């Protein structure tokens, strides 16, 4: 097995010194080797293969690997590398201090470090020689943003989906790599700016979500009419909510939705926004329905199709 790993991924990397390295040396060595493995084949396929030798796709051990029976510093290091690679490849936030000491501030909640607010990380992304790791870290930042916005800011989610590719990045293609890193940073900053402007105008998250929905996309200039309408819509939706003790059901949602949509139509007409709320394929209606349903249910739901049980009114 050692031989196979050497032939497939390590090639001429000198593994003899792993035993006896200090923690810091091991960390640096792991990051360096990970970068080399990512550079071997397109899309980091070598790393994918390597991880596959040690674990299943759900991060559980692949017990049939004979190395698990061995106890040695080298095998421990194999696993350390596999874990690190696993995080990178599955876009899972990890402790950034592993990448470089001082990058992360939240050891327990690493996703909080993967933001553009983390200036040291942004600088690292721009300057590090480990470009393949950098592109995957940028990917993790984007995925962490998705975590934050999915189910909360529909327009932002679509903004990311339209501006940052969701397909795999070819780690060997330098132009693709660099443009992806740049693009991700730009998009996250644009969203942060947009939301900050919303907060400066005194909007809460929900009102921003509705303002974006009424407009149809983000970023926009927070037109007065739309901001005013968004506030009114939020109030109307809030006022019609049944008491928290009422059991939520799809039928109940239909009963809730009907008058709210009528109020909405009045508000929209009053501000002359030209939104036809009976047009169920319109993007605004999609966003609004999704928001209302989540609001009614009191939690976010996976795979909610706003047209399920949609009633003409």
């Amino acid at each position, binding site marked *: 097995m050692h031989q196979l790993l050497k032939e497939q991924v390590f090639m001429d990397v000198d593994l003899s010194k792993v035993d006896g390295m200090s923690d810091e040396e091991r960390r640096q060595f792991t990051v360096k080797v990970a970068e080399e493995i990512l550079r071997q084949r397109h899309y980091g396929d070598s790393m*994918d293969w390597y991880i596959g030798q040690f674990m299943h796709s759900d991060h559980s051990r692949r017990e049939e690997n004979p190395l698990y029976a061995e106890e040695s510093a080298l095998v421990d290091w194999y696993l350390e590398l596999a874990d690190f690679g696993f995080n990178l*490849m599955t*876009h899972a936030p990890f402790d950034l201090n592993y990448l470089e000491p001082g990058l992360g501030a939240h050891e327990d909640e690493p996703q909080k470090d993967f933001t553009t607010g983390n200036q040291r990380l942004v600088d690292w992304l721009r300057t590090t020689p480990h470009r393949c790791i950098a592109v995957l870290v940028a990917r993790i930042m984007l*995925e962490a943003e998705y975590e934050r916005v999915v189910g909360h800011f529909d327009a932002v989610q679509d903004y990311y989906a339209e501006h940052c590719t969701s397909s795999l990045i070819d780690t060997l293609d330098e132009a693709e790599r660099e443009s992806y890193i740049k693009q991700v940073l730009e998009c996250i900053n644009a969203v942060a700016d947009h939301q900050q402007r919303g907060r400066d105008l005194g909007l809460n998250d929900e009102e921003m979500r509705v303002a974006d929905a009424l407009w149809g996309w983000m970023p926009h200039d927070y037109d007065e009419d739309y901001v005013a309408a968004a506030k009114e819509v939020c109030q109307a939706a809030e006022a019609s909510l049944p008491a928290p003790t009422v059991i939520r059901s799809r039928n109940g949602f239909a009963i809730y939705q009907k008058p709210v949509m009528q109020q909405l139509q009045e508000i929209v007409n009053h501000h002359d926004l030209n939104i036809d709320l009976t047009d169920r394929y319109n993007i605004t209606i999609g966003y609004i329905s999704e928001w209302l349903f989540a609001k009614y249910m009191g939690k976010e739901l996976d795979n909610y199709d706003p047209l399920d049980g949609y009633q003409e009114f």
Partner: protein
Amino acid sequence: MDIRNSNSQPTLSSQRRYERLQVDADRLFDIGWLIERLMHELRQMLATEPAPSPSRLFSGFRRNAEQRFAWEMLHAHTKSLSKVSDLQQIFPERDQLISKLQEEREQQIDLFSQLMISKRWDTLRDDDSTWRRFAHMMYNLSATTPEMNERFFALVDYIYMLTLAILGKEKQYFQEADNDTTTVPLPPTSTAPNLDSIDVRAELKLFLREAWFDKFSTDRKRFTSEWRDRFVNALIESDYGEAIIVDFTNETRDKRQIVKGAIVGCLKAAGVFAESDLSMARAILYPQGSKQAVGHEEEAERKKKSKTLSSYIGREKKQKYYYWVLEWVEAHPSED
């Protein structure tokens, strides 16, 4: 093993919007109504100031998103006609052509849907308020650039032309394009004026010499009766003269009023008159007007007839010679 999946994907609403653009393209991109409305908008703009200088025009567009939208949309209008006619020449067979056109349109809509503003495309309805709002959003958008707008108009026009060709409605535009290559048969009126044409000329000249003309004319010194005679002569000698004569001498149905109304309407659009269609129609039909005391029934009859004529006047845009009249009036400012 492949562990590199991702939860990054657009919302369901956005996917649905995209599908609707594709599936409902025949309806969403058949925008003849929009073109007409925009034409009307620009005409109104030019009515207040017939010949603005380019700098004035464009500084006006910076302030007025609606006029700018109309201008840019019409500027791109029918520009991509040649692309569609190329396709028609490559694929002469109808079935093959249609599937090719649809394939092409699918790709273009794909590109179109990537533009932010396309998310609002399906809010356009056949009325004036929706496109005005759309125009405001389009130029309000801090993220758009002139290149993106240009791209937007080019794409809309191309998809519109493809849609027309798919629906088989492209004739109206293609005939104009074909005129350059095919030889147009000379209208018989241009070689030997026949009796009909003389009659028609005489009647039209008399019609325009009536008293109502001066009453509503915007410039009596300019639109003299000689000017009107020359207008009638030129109109009958133009490419459209034949059609007017045919309408005028139609034996099964008297279309004289319709033709007269249409000509008055075109002249009005060209700036010769500035009065409501109805009051003009009434003055044309009943020159004595209110001086004459009439009975109740007679009054109702008069109202009805005036209304009919005014509706003929209001149909000026449907006339084939509409632009010809606009150009002629512009080219003949006064008596030489």
